[in-house]
């Protein structure tokens, strides 16, 4: 049972990291807390569903269209909404949350709810690993999240745009002196975050079904993981995903599933009590020292 629990805890960790990485990327670079993130996740899921089931186009096409559409939508949201309230954190949160709310409630209003709204698993097979059955989709999530973290690392360390992301994240005004355009980079950061929400949806939704309420759930989980990790730190997201991922699964197995929520909340409170800026809240600490 222990190996099984550990395996499922790892998968849970991967799911949480996948959900949080996009939100974290946007926040880490431009400081925008995109509260429409959960809605973007759901939007992409319905987008893929609609393209496959209503337009009868192939699944891979649907995936690409949904990711690109989400990225464009994110960029437009930055250009036409966020740009006007840039630098006022509360207004940014209200604006993005409002947009997210509108999207999610619209889907509820039109009654797009039910078991027929789901995305197919990639491969319908299960494997026995050390006596525990795991389906292919969960293994795909596990493998892909590792690949994604590596790709993000490579992107931010070896491409001009990725390096500009890190420059803006560390010291915006200095980044400007090298010809980096901060509004363009911020646009990209929101856009990439929205694209990652689509990617997360495409991997995770097949485990359940598409429902507007999921959007809120994803936003809360992403927020929790990012706050524990120390907003904006990729290492922090990974560490926090491990903490919450393992805490949830172990509580589930050894204490009871009705305690799951409480234990994760307790984990959040504990981390924040010991280290208010989150596990990897390095930047903050530097500021505090100065």
């Amino acid at each position, binding site marked *: 049972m222990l190996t099984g629990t550990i395996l499922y805890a790892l998968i849970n960790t991967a799911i949480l990291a996948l959900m949080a990485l996009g939100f974290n990327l946007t926040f880490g670079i431009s400081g925008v807390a995109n509260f429409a993130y959960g809605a973007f996740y759901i939007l992409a899921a319905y987008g893929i569903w609609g393209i496959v089931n209503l337009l009868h186009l192939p699944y891979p096409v649907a995936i690409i269209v949904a990711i690109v559409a989400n990225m464009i939508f994110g960029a437009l949201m930055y250009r036409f909404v966020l740009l006007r309230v840039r630098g006022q954190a509360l207004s940014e949160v209200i604006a993005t949350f409002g947009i997210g709310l509108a999207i999610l409630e619209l889907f509820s209003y039109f009654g797009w709810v039910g078991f027929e709204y789901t995305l197919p698993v990639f491969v319908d097979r299960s494997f026995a690993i050390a006596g525990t059955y795991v389906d292919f989709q969960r293994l795909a999530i596990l493998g892909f999240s590792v690949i994604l973290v590596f790709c993000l690392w490579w992107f931010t360390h070896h491409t*001009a745009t990725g390096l500009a992301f890190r420059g803006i994240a560390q010291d915006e005004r200095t980044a400007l002196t090298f010809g980096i355009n901060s509004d363009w980079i911020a646009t990209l950061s929101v856009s990439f975050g929205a694209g990652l929400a689509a990617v997360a949806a495409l991997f995770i939704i097949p485990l359940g079904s598409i429902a507007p309420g999921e959007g809120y759930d994803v936003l809360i989980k992403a927020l929790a993981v990012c706050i524990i990790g120390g907003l904006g730190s990729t290492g922090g997201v990974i560490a926090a995903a491990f903490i919450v991922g393992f805490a949830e699964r172990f509580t589930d197995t050894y204490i009871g599933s009705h305690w799951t929520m409480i234990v994760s909340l307790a984990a959040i409170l504990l981390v924040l009590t010991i280290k208010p800026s989150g596990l990897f809240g390095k930047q903050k600490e530097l500021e505090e020292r100065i």
Partner: protein
Amino acid sequence: MLEVNDLMVFFENALALNGLSLKVDEGEIVGLIGSNSAGKTTFINTVSGLIIDMRIKEKRKGGERISIYGNIRYQGEDITEMPPNERVSKGIVVSRERHPVFQESSVVENFKIAGYLRTKAEIKETMDFVFTLFPPLSKLKTRKAGFLSGGEQQMLAIGMALVVRPKLLLLDEPLLGLSPMMQKAVMDAIVSLNKESGITVLLSEQFARPVLPVVDRAYVVENGMLSLSGTGAALMNNPEIKAAYFGV
């Protein structure tokens, strides 16, 4: 190359620059001497365009109003309202005061970020050049920039500006807080950049002593206004300058 006419800058209603006019010819090193809060940084930021970005950001969040009057011409073109990234593409590159570097990144990575507009090969080439210009940096390639000493950070900051390949290099108080030995190393490097690499330099400083001997011309600012200007040699022998800007 650079021609500034009657520049006035207000922060809200406070006048930071008051009718400043200045000229930098191609190939010169020009000094801008002024005591604390004389307006040196405001001037440098207005030429580099950073103030345009500050003005936009302040406006968006409803902060202080920044107003700019007068005009700045660079290679014959009016750039007064041009955003900073376009000025960088045209060769105006600033190294800001207090040598800000990307603290969490290694020395090499700082160069890579600074090379946003350059190819990988160009970055590599300038980086190797900077390591010969500032030999201490070459032993610190993988060190996090936040762990460098003030002097090393200053070398890195100037090196990062060089990666952009400036035609007009603006240096805001590059000697601030450095030991006399570091000051000399940095000053020598600036002279060699000017003489050997042909980069035009405008540098600001509080103290005239290390600057006047190497500059072609210098301007002295007081309270945002020009009080004196002339060749380095002429200003060196000016008793007023000696009393006010030579320190002890």
